[in-house]
């Protein structure tokens, strides 16, 4: 099995979720080995996921957490 750039783009959601079949996965890796443009795209999309997971999360301010905890009678 071989994939072109458009076909690879269609496989990316499953690629990132690790849900490709072995055959699809091999085809994606083969394509990425020879296509610099797709490799850059995949690297940047991976970068987006890293940015989101490392910097996208917020913390409820401690004083608000305490206030809500008390209002819920959790103390």
């Amino acid at each position, binding site marked *: 099995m071989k994939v072109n750039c458009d076909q690879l783009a269609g496989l*990316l*959601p*499953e690629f990132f*979720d690790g849900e490709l079949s072995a055959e699809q996965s091999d085809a994606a890796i083969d394509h990425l080995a020879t296509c610099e443009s797709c490799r850059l*795209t995949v*690297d*940047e*999309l991976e*970068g*987006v*996921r890293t*940015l*989101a*997971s490392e*910097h*996208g*999360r*917020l*913390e*409820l301010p401690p004083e*608000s*957490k305490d206030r*809500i*905890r008390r*209002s*819920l009678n*959790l103390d």
Partner: protein
Amino acid sequence: MKTPEPGWLFDTFADGVYTLAYRIVRDRHLAEDVVQETFIKVIRSLGSYRGDGPIAAWIYRIAYRQAIAVTRRRQEEPLDPVAVAVEIDRPTGTVEEQVLAGELAARLDEAIGALSEPVRAAFVLRDVEGLSTGEVAAALEISRSAVKMRLARAREAMRRQMEEYLT
């Protein structure tokens, strides 16, 4: 099935619910209200939680519905990017590092906020909160293929918006 303890649920999911709520309603105080209302509902409904799905998806479903209800009720308000930067990241390190971290947080906030609401919710739950695709589908009450479609749109838009931070 043993019913989860309310205090444990709050400690485990409060920040995640706050993250989702803030990303949807775009206002710190309204997001805190969403957290409070969500956990009131969670605690009231614990007895009826059947344990037939991941508890994270159940809690985020309640939070998402609550955040959408708040969004529909309120009028658009301008955001204060400085306040957002301070609120999102509490950077440590040198002054220069803190400034860069604050800029990144503000830019990330702007980029996430520019996504359409359904796409944003999927992105926050999957890529920020780390839920599985199945859990996101359950939380947003949509199919797994719809989640994947929204994620593809979100990641592509974020890639364009955050390009300078990705090289």
